[in-house]
């Protein structure tokens, strides 16, 4: 029998759980600048995350999906993408969104149940959070098709979870990306759980990255708690896409340190021992240890930055909380470019009902 295909999947790691180099570091990692920037943003993202959870617990925010444990997947992407690239996120990419220019108060506004969280000009052409699992993968391919058709040097970057890799949209997306050699990067944030369903129940293969093989595209696995590995993998994928060399799939192995969302209780299905072990691998401490060991960061800087971060998050929170609700007619006014005549009456009713004395006043 002839061999008509051979392939493999590699795993990339530079920093051990203890923050020690496990391989020769890339040249850029010998410079403190990028790594400390990365670290600062990981800390900021985590602070925003804690605040969001606190707001949810006190009834000031809706169901919220924590990013705890995916800081090292998100932040490098946010730092490396160019403004003209397009982010097509899932619902756990707040850090990347923030780095792409989305003000923190808008991130909160979104999770506070308000469409204006998707509306700011700073978001440029980035897609809003995507709730229907894996559908964003295909939007990314559509964006990449437009980019390719126009011969632009831009990249569509899309994220999803490990669970999402089971859904047709993700797989159809990989397939068309391969068939058309689209300038798109798929990042799977494999945080090991899809709500209560562990990675092993999603798929029978040893890696998720090998789903790239069937689509004829590049796939690799990286330690998703190691920002150096993530940057290397991501930069390569971005460059290739930008140079017309086709799509890539990056499986970043992280761990969901939080509940799935604030509506979930992971203790119902997840072993505490596993969680404890995962905390030993977590990305923020790992990077801090490395920075300390290089002499690029110290306790004073840490304390100062923590304070600064708290102020930033507090300011954003205040702005968020001070944002009045949209008027009811907003639900009509963005449905179409121009409101069809058929809806004028409904819009009028809605406004009357929302007025003082109306049946929906203050509801």
């Amino acid at each position, binding site marked *: 029998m002839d061999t008509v295909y051979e392939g493999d999947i590699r795993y990339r790691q530079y920093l051990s759980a203890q923050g020690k180099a496990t391989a020769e570091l890339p040249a850029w990692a010998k410079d403190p600048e990028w790594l400390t920037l990365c670290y600062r943003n990981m800390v900021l993202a985590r602070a925003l995350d804690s605040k969001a959870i606190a707001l949810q617990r006190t009834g000031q925010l*809706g*169901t919220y999906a924590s990013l705890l444990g995916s800081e090292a997947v998100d932040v490098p992407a946010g730092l490396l993408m160019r403004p003209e690239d397009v982010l097509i996120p899932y*619902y756990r990419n707040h850090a990347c969104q923030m780095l792409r220019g989305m003000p923190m108060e808008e991130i909160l506004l979104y999770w*506070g*149940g*308000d*469409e204006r969280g998707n509306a700011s000009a700073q978001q440029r052409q980035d897609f809003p*959070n995507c*709730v*229907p*699992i894996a559908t964003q993968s295909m939007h990314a391919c559509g964006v990449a098709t437009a980019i390719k058709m126009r011969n632009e040097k831009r990249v569509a970057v899309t994220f999803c979870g490990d*669970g*999402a890799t*089971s*859904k*047709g*949209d993700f797989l159809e997306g990989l397939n068309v990306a391969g068939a058309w050699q689209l300038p798109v990067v798929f990042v799977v944030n494999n945080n090991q759980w*899809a*709500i*209560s*369903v562990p990675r092993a*129940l*999603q*798929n029978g293969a040893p890696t998720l990255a090998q789903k790239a093989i069937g689509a004829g595209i590049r796939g690799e696995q990286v330690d998703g708690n190691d920002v150096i590995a993530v940057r290397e993998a991501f930069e390569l994928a971005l460059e290739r896409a930008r140079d017309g060399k086709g799509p890539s799939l990056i499986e970043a192995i992280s761990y969901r340190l939080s509940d799935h*969302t604030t*509506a*979930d209780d992971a203790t*119902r*299905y997840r072993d505490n021992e596993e969680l404890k072990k995962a905390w030993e691998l977590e990305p923020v401490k790992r990077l801090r240890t490395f920075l300390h060991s290089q002499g690029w960061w110290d306790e004073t800087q840490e304390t100062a930055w923590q304070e600064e971060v708290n102020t930033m998050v507090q300011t954003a929170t205040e702005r968020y909380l001070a944002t009045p*609700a*949209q008027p*009811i007619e*907003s*639900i*009509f006014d963005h*449905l179409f470019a121009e409101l069809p005549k*058929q*809806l004028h009456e*409904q819009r009028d009713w*809605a406004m009357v*009902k*929302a007025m003082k004395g109306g*049946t*929906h006043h203050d*509801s």
Partner: protein
Amino acid sequence: MTHEAITMVEAVNLALAHEMEHDENVVILGEDVGTNGGVFRATAGLKDRFGNRRVMDTPLAEAMIGGLTVGMASQGLKPVAEIQFMGFIFPALEHIICHAARLRNRTRGRLTCPMVLRAPFGGGIHAPEHHSESTETLLAHIPGLRVVIPSSPARAYGLLLSAIRDPDPVIFLEPKRIYRASKQPVPDNGAALPLDTCFTLREGSDITLVSWGAMVKETLEAAEQLAEEGISCEVIDVATISPLDMDTILASVAKTGRCAIVHEASRNLGVGAEITANLCEKALMDLQAPPVRITGYDTVMPYYRLENHFMPNTADIKDAVRQTLEFV
């Protein structure tokens, strides 16, 4: 046999357990239905009790859930699949519409599809996007399906039993806003409720109020409050929205001469349209006033900060009823 008062979601759980206990062909599949017991706990405890062969956590793929269910049902299993939220049912529609609803017809009865597809739906719990829509029309329009929506713990129990025992596919939509809104004693006696009839929840003579699902609560409240104003409302819970039992509604309107239909779904082509059309066609001479629909708007369900504006409330129903009664 329990006579304790239980919530609707507990009633769903009770009915599932009852049927699994009595029919080994009944199996459950869906996302997070196993160890987690479903994100709303509808399947809580069932995996422990019946094992992971009969309570299956699936990979995350709704088309697959739909397709697996059809394949399993064709083998004489009675799969009860859960779609985590109705907003995620769309990928499964090809299997529901092209296969589940047609397998018996396509094979002239050689293969059948005795399955239930459960999905929580509707607004009012301040949920993320796509977790609050009411798109029952999309299923109710499809020939070959039964579409059932309970409005109380007891009806959830009895209707779900029927749905599972039914030899054909049943879509069972659970109004999650009232999953835990009230409790009711529900004897676990295996007594099913019929899928071919509306339930008259309150007798009245001035107007017929027709509703289903979560809005039955507001509808009953409105009836109660209007009674204090001397307005006598008959309240009908449609329950099985397709095939639709117009007989009960027509008989009621023949008596009252007026009708208000309350649903959370958008107005345009909501099930209220079919009911109103039937009234017009079959009861034109009975109608003392135009029927009125009290519904969601023809807009996207707003993200949750404004969702209560979208959903009809008790005051809306009362207003509409009063206006209908003023019509001469």
